[in-house]
């Protein structure tokens, strides 16, 4: 699993590639929560390269979403693959997270 960062105006975009299982979730947590904790106003996770995620990774995403919301900061996801979207639907997280079909749509929102 690797994560690359890009800035688009006010938004920090983190592009995630690979698989996030319970082992990778630890690194994922540190990487994603750092900008949250340093006060990033808008964070976008581009999951176009994510092929698999389990509950450990979902927990990190939920934590980031809650923490951003508590600070009135933005947090969104985009480019979910079908198999990843299924996991978000089953868990009910699709209802409570800001999910966009593309990076462009997410940045325009």
């Amino acid at each position, binding site marked *: 699993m690797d994560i690359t960062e890009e800035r688009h105006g006010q938004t920090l975009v983190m592009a995630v590639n690979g*698989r996030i*299982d*319970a*082992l990778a979730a630890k690194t994922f947590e540190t990487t994603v929560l750092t900008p949250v904790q340093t006060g990033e106003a808008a964070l976008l996770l581009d999951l176009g390269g994510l092929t*698999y995620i*389990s*509950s*450990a990774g*979902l*927990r990190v995403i*939920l934590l980031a*979403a*809650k923490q951003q*919301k508590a600070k009135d900061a933005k947090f969104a996801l985009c480019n979910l693959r079908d*198999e990843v979207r299924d*996991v978000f639907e*089953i*868990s*009910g*997280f699709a*209802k*409570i*997270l800001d999910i966009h079909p593309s990076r462009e749509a997410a940045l325009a929102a």
Partner: protein
Amino acid sequence: MKKRQDGELVLRIPGDLSEIARLPELVDNFGARHGLPAKLLTSLNLVLEELVVNTVSYGYEDPAADPGADSGRDDRSIEIRLRRDGDLITLQIEDDGKAFDPTALDEPDTDAAIEERDAGGLGIHFVRTLMDTVEYRRVGDRNRLTMTKQIDP
């Protein structure tokens, strides 16, 4: 990894979280051997990981409660059996942890607002949603979870 009989794979893995890295290869090899659809393999991978992580995390003595206990022991066993009979896949996981019936857990409230949600119970929720049947039995000093899934035509 040892092949016991046609269609059945037995993997005896020590109870260490790093071992979950070996699971996808097991599932993908089984899938390739039987020409199973990718979506089914993704489901099996997820179910297996969630159950093994639960067992390794909760099924043994808590190192925080008992600092002398070595939670990285390699003499535990978690046996995984994947079998295909026609269009039915059976997945069985057996471990020697303390008695724990995952089917007895409450479902998370997937309609709750974000403030009320946590990630607890999600692993078991995935197992129940993705597999057609889930059955728990305590056999001697082992937990045995048997699950089935129909291969979609």
